[in-house]
C-alpha cells in the first residue's frame, strides 16, 4: 500500500534512520566475511606448516612422493619456505589477495585453472539438486497440511529417514533401481540432462528430508495460530490459507538453512561426482586428497569458503525480504 503525501514528515526521518542501519548492517556483514576469509586462509597456512616432516614435500605430494631434489628446492624457493615465518605469511596473504592459489602438482597446472574448469558442472549439479529438493519439500508440506494426523506422521518418518541416508548408498540404490533394474537412466553421467537426473536426485532427497522436517514444524505452528483462525473466519479457503499465510511462515527457517544446505551439497558432490564419474569440483577434490596434493585441496577449500560466505549473505538478505520484522530491527 503506497503512502500518501500527507505522511511525509514521519517517513523521511524514519527513512534516513533505516538507510543508516542498512549501511551499518552491510558494513558489519562485509567485515564479518573478510574476517572469516582471513581466518580460513591463516588456518590453512599453518595447516601446511604443521604437517610432520618437510613442508616442501607436503606440497609436492606427501612423504612418499619421491620428489626430486631439484623439485624440492624449487618448491622451497616458490613458497619462500626458507624465509622467516612472518615474511612467508605476508607473501602468502599477498598472493591470495591477487588470486594466486599456487600450483597443483598432480595436475601440473595452476590451482585457479583447475578450479575454474570444474566449478561450472558442480554448480549446475548443486543448483538442480536444490531446485528438486525445494519442490519435493513443498509438495510434502502441501500434502501434510491437507491430510490427517496419521498421514502427517508417516510423512514425518519418511523425511527423517530421507535425511539420514548417506549419499553413496542412495546413489547405489538409485542406480540399481533406475539403471540396472528399469534401464531408464544411465548409471554413469553422460553429457546432457539425462546424465544429470540420478546425481541430482541423489543429492536432492536427503536435502528435501531436512528441509521438509524444518518446514513441517513451522507450517503446523502457523496453521494452528490465531491469525490463520482469523483468516478462516473471514471466509478464506484452505488453499488461500496455505499460500497466503502459512507458507511464508514455513519458509523462514528453511531459508535460514540455505548456508548449511550449500555446504551439504558441496560435500555430497564429492561422493556423487565420484560414483557417477561426473567431472566437477568434488571429484577433483577427492583425487587431490588421494594424491596428497595439498595446494589443490587448500585452494578448493578456500573457494568453497568464499562461496559459503556469499550464500549466507544472500540468505540474510532473503530473510529480510520474507520476514519484514527483521527490517526495522538491526
Amino acid at each position, binding site marked *: 500500500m503506497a503512502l500518501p503525501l500527507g505522511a511525509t514528515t514521519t517517513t523521511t526521518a524514519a527513512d534516513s534512520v533505516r538507510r543508516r542501519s542498512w549501511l551499518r548492517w552491510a558494513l558489519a556483514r562485509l567485515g*564479518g566475511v573478510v*574476517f*572469516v576469509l582471513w*581466518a*580460513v586462509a591463516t*588456518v*590453512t597456512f599453518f*595447516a*601446511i606448516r*604443521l*604437517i610432520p616432516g618437510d613442508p616442501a614435500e*607436503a606440497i609436492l605430494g*606427501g612423504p612418499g612422493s619421491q620428489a626430486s631434489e631439484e623439485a624440492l628446492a624449487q618448491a622451497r624457493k616458490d613458497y619462500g619456505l626458507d624465509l622467516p615465518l612472518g615474511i612467508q605469511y605476508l607473501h602468502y596473504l599477498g598472493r591470495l589477495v591477487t588470486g594466486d592459489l599456487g600450483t597443483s602438482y598432480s595436475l601440473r597446472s595452476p590451482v585457479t585453472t583447475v578450479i575454474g574448469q570444474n566449478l561450472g558442472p558442480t554448480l549446475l549439479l548443486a543448483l538442480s539438486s536444490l531446485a528438486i529438493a525445494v519442490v519435493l519439500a513443498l509438495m510434502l508440506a502441501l500434502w501434510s497440511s491437507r491430510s490427517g494426523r496419521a498421514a502427517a*506422521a508417516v510423512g514425518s*518418518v519418511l523425511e*527423517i*529417514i530421507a*535425511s*539420514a*541416508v*548417506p*549419499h*553413496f*548408498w542412495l546413489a*547405489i*540404490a538409485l*542406480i*540399481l533401481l533406475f539403471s*540396472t533394474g528399469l534401464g531408464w537412466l544411465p*548409471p554413469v553421467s553422460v553429457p546432457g540432462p539425462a546424465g544429470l537426473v540420478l546425481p541430482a536426485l541423489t543429492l536432492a532427497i536427503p536435502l528435501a528430508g531436512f528441509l521438509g522436517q524444518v518446514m513441517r514444524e513451522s507450517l503446523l505452528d502457523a496453521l494452528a495460530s490465531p491469525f490463520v483462525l482469523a483468516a478462516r473466519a473471514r471466509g478464506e479457503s484452505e488453499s488461500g490459507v496455505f499460500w497466503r499465510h502459512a507458507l511464508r511462515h514455513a519458509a523462514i527457517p528453511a531459508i535460514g538453512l540455505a548456508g548449511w544446505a*550449500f*555446504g*551439504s551439497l*558441496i*560435500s555430497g558432490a*564429492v*561422493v556423487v561426482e*565420484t*560414483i557417477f564419474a561426473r567431472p566437477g569440483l568434488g571429484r577433483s*577434490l*577427492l583425487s*587431490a*586428497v*588421494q594424491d*596428497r*596434493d*595439498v595446494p589443490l*585441496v*587448500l585452494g*578448493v*577449500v578456500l573457494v*568453497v*569458503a568464499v562461496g*559459503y*560466505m556469499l550464500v549466507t549473505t544472500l540468505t540474510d538478505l532473503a530473510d529480510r525480504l520474507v520476514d519484514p520484522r527483521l527490517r526495522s530491527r538491526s
Partner: protein
Amino acid sequence: MRRPSVVVSLAIVLFIVIAAIAPNLLAPGDPLAIHPGDSFLPPSLGHPFGTDESGRDVYTRIIHGAGASVLIGITATAIGLGLAIVFGLLAGLGPRWLDFGTTRFLEVLFAFPGLLFALLFIVIYGPGVLTSTIAVGLATAPGYGRIIRSRVLVVRRAPYLEASLVLGRGRFFRVTRHLLPNVAGSLFVLATLGIGQSIVWASSLSYLGLGAVPPAAEWGAMLSAGRTYISSFWWLTFFPGLFIVLTAAATTLLGRGLQERVRS
C-alpha cells in the same frame, strides 16, 4: 508414547548393540575365514547377503563388523561433543568477549562444510581409521557447539534461575543445580542423533578410500573393498550400506522421538 516408529527404531538399535557386543549370537561363523572357491556368490539361502571376493560370507562380516563401526561412531561423537561442550559452555557462561571470540571461532570452523574439513584433516595427516574418526569428530564439533551455546544462553536467562537467586542461592548452586542439568538434557538427544550421523560420515570416508581398510570386517572397509565391483556384484556394497542406513535412521528417529518427549 509408544509410536510404531520409535518401537521399530529401538528394536533395530537393540539388534545392532547385540551384534556389537556378542556377534556370535547372531552370526556363528568366522568373518575372516577365506573360501576361494565360493567367491562372488549372489544372495541365497546359504548366504543371505552373498559372499565377497574371497568367499567370505557378507552377512557374518556385517554382524562382526558392527562393533568396530559402532565404536567409531561413538568415539567420533564423543570427540565432537566433548569439544562442543567446552566451547559451548565457555561461550555461554563466560564474559561477553569470550562469547564473542568463541562464536566467531565456531563460525570460522562452520564455514567449511563438514566433509571438506574432514578431508583437509586427512590430506594433512593421512588416511586411516584413526584420522578419519578424529576428522569426523572435529568436523561435527562446531555444529554441536552452536546448539549447546544457544541452549546455555536460553537457560541462563530463564526465570527459574532468577527465582533461585532471589531465594539467596549462590552462583555455584545455581549453576550445578539448575543450569547444567537443564543443558545436559539436550546433550543426550544430540548424542543419539550424533552417533548415527558419525557412522554415516565415517563410512562415507571409508567408501572414498580414506578411512578403514580391508580386510577388517568393518562396514566402511567393506564398502571400500566393494567399490570397484558395484555394477557386477552390487551386494558387496549394498548390504553394508543398508545396515549403515538402518543404524543411522534408527538412531535419528530415536533422537527425534526423545526431542519431542523432552519438549512436551
